[in-house]
């Protein structure tokens, strides 16, 4: 029996296990949307801006490990996806983006709402397709999902001309995939694993830095076993947060530009760095020439192109992190690094991250600690980009993978709200908090309407400091406090929420924090808290741009001891 392209598309999506998608209709997608009600297995969530659809698919993918799906119409709909696709690309998040396209006879004619979206997204997709025949759709969908989720995951785009959605064709169940150019490294090379094991067994001050690759590979258990056997301390990248339990005795938190002092000290002093599923981003290396100066480096990654890209590596191991860690565990000796761990603990005492200054004001760090307490550390925390993002990474402690969802590589303001929406849809049993900034939230605030229409119970904590805080912080520290284009006049977020029919609260004092969080959690549905935090609080520690990773600036101590005491006579 013949089916339309739209039917074939829907059935192929169901075949891939799709039960939810985030989309926004338009002229050339009418055949698809007209068909969609025939397939009630697919829940369609109508976003308010296509960027929200892409971020929601991304948040869904990160929370579940499954492929997220978003859809947008041709032209402006498709271009609105671009930021979200780029975000997924840089953080290796598996999404499939479906875009409408003008009918085949109009392609290349600059037709109404025609844009070359496969051309535009060429450098930010893992692969892309223009479906030029309805009969080819099932094969394309199968390939697209396979490519998105396997190997190093990433976004795949399928462009769907309007008349292809209407065209009749036989539904062919796609056979075996034929992708001769697609290679997925699996096990690491045994010789390389042996060389790495030798270095590990000899090292005095070994250190593991774990990245998002550990989470993607679902290798947290293997990492834990490996670290415990070798007694090797573990630090993580921003996107590796949660790959290793932060309450573990071998955990030394996050390293990098806003990493803990002790994690960065560890990087400076290690004699063997075991980098696992991470790509030596400049936010974690600092000045590359001064990075891990005493260390030999073992780099385990699935993507051969990441080996030696930014940092020289002594023993590269190309392979799936999980398989490599399993194999490596077999060949390493049970280790003991008492002196090294003692030294790290000493640094932890000298450079504590855990001190929150005893301020009468409302500090964002304090709020995040309260969120941690209230949720028992079990919530999924989704952030926007900026100071609040770093505070969330620093002050909420993550003991499970997939619970910290944040835009790392692209640093996309506005990621928080739509991504938290996707996370909650993907894991409805979890409490999902969107920790956002007043600047970041306003970039995608329209998705509040989506929360309401689809009853997605995301809790939103706005760290409202009236500034584009991270940029202001740089102006404060490196541009002589010239706050140009960073002071922000914000709307009344509680009233905004109410206008969207979301209950909200404003919190201005420390004492109100706990009760407000409890109220938000008790409410059955989305909830917003507008925390009026100290406007000029900075994120510390901070490695100044261009500096070595161990040259971090810490919170000015003077302020800590004098400021609150002045207020009490």
């Amino acid at each position, binding site marked *: 029996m013949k089916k339309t392209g739209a039917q074939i598309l829907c059935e192929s999506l169901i075949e891939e296990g799709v039960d939810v998608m985030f989309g926004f209709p338009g002229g050339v997608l009418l055949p698809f949307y007209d068909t969609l009600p025939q397939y009630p297995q697919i829940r369609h969530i109508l976003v308010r801006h296509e960027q929200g659809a892409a971020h929601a698919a991304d948040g869904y993918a990160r929370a579940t490990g499954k492929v997220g799906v978003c859809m947008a119409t041709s032209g402006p709909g498709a271009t609105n996806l671009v930021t979200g696709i780029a975000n997924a690309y840089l953080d290796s998040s598996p999404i499939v983006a479906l875009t409408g396209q003008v009918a085949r006879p109009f392609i290349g004619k600059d037709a109404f709402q025609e844009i070359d979206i496969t*051309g535009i997204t*060429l*450098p930010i997709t*893992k*692969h892309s397709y*223009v479906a030029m025949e309805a009969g080819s759709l099932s094969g394309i969908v199968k390939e697209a999902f396979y490519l998105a989720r396997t190997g190093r995951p990433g976004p795949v785009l399928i462009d769907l001309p309007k008349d292809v959605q209407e065209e009749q064709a036989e539904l062919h169940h796609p056979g075996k995939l034929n992708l001769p*150019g697609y290679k997925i490294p699996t096990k690491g090379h045994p010789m390389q694993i042996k060389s790495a094991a030798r270095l590990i067994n000899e090292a005095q001050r070994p250190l593991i830095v774990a990245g998002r690759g550990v989470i993607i590979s679902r290798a947290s258990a293997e990492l834990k076993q490996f670290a415990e056997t070798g007694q090797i301390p573990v630090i993580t990248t921003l996107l590796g947060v949660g790959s290793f339990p932060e309450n573990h005795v071998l955990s030394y938190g996050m390293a990098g530009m806003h990493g803990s002092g002790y994690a960065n000290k560890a990087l400076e002093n290690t004699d063997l760095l075991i980098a696992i599923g991470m790509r030596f981003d400049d936010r974690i290396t600092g000045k590359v020439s001064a990075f891990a100066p005493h260390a030999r480096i073992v780099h385990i990654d699935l993507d051969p*192109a990441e080996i*030696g890209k930014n940092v020289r590596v002594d023993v590269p191991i190309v392979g799936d992190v999980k398989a490599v860690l399993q194999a490596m565990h077999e060949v390493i000796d049970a280790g003991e690094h008492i002196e090294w761990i003692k030294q790290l603990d000493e640094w932890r005492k000298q450079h504590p991250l855990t001190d929150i200054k005893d301020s009468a004001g409302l500090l964002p760090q304090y709020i995040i600690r309260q969120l941690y307490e209230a949720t028992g550390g079990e919530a999924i925390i989704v952030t926007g980009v900026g100071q609040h993002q770093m505070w969330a990474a620093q002050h909420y402690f993550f003991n499970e993978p997939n619970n910290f969802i944040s835009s790392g590589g692209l640093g996309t303001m506005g990621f928080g709200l739509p991504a938290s929406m996707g996370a909650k849809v993907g894991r409805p049993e979890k409490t999902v908090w969107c920790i956002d900034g007043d600047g970041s939230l306003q970039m995608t605030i329209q998705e509040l309407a989506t929360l309401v229409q689809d009853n997605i119970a995301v809790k939103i904590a706005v760290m409202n400091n009236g500034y584009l805080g991270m940029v202001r912080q740089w102006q404060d520290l490196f541009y002589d406090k010239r706050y140009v284009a960073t002071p922000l006049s914000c709307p009344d977020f509680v009233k905004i929420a109410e206008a969207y029919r979301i209950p909200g609260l404003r919190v201005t004092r420390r004492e109100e924090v706990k009760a407000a969080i409890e109220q938000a959690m008790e409410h059955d549905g989305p909830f917003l808290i507008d925390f009026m935090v100290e406007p000029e609080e900075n994120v510390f520690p901070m490695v100044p741009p261009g500096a070595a990773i161990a040259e971090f600036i810490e919170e000015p101590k003077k302020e800590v001891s004098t400021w609150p005491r002045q207020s009490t006579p």
Partner: protein
Amino acid sequence: MATTKHTLVAIVEDKPGVLNRMASLFRRRGFNIESIAVGHSEVPHLSRMTIIVNGSNAMVEQVRKQLDKLIDVVRVSDITGDNITVRELALIKVKANSATRSEIIEITDIFRANIVDVASDSLTIEITGDEDKIDSMLKLLRGFGVREIARTGRVAMVRGNLGAVPAEEKAARSRAKK
């Protein structure tokens, strides 16, 4: 870092947009493609590209790996250090009159090139060879006045039984030899 000329051979699927994807990668990593030649390979639906780029070994290796990640690219090898045969074809239209024609024909013979078109005031010469050969012939012809040049860009092949195998395979092989 010292830059050298690298010869990359890519086997790619014969699909729309492949060239675009590859060119996009070169542009993004800041590479200038000196020449690129594309045509069918011995396998149906697979094309073979010969790409000449300038860059340091590390940079070219990075681009090679990035190219290899493209789904439509079956394999890419840097055959620069190999024993290879490199050929390019050029069509050269050179001014000629009764006084100069015989001298041009003589040069053509010396280079074992062919005259493929004769007009009242010009000759078109077809020459095949490596870059040096074509350049030296061109140098001689410039004196007569060159009207037009069309060059194909280089195509390359490893001599002997070896094909354009992926670098990892080759590395493994050389490791085994040691």
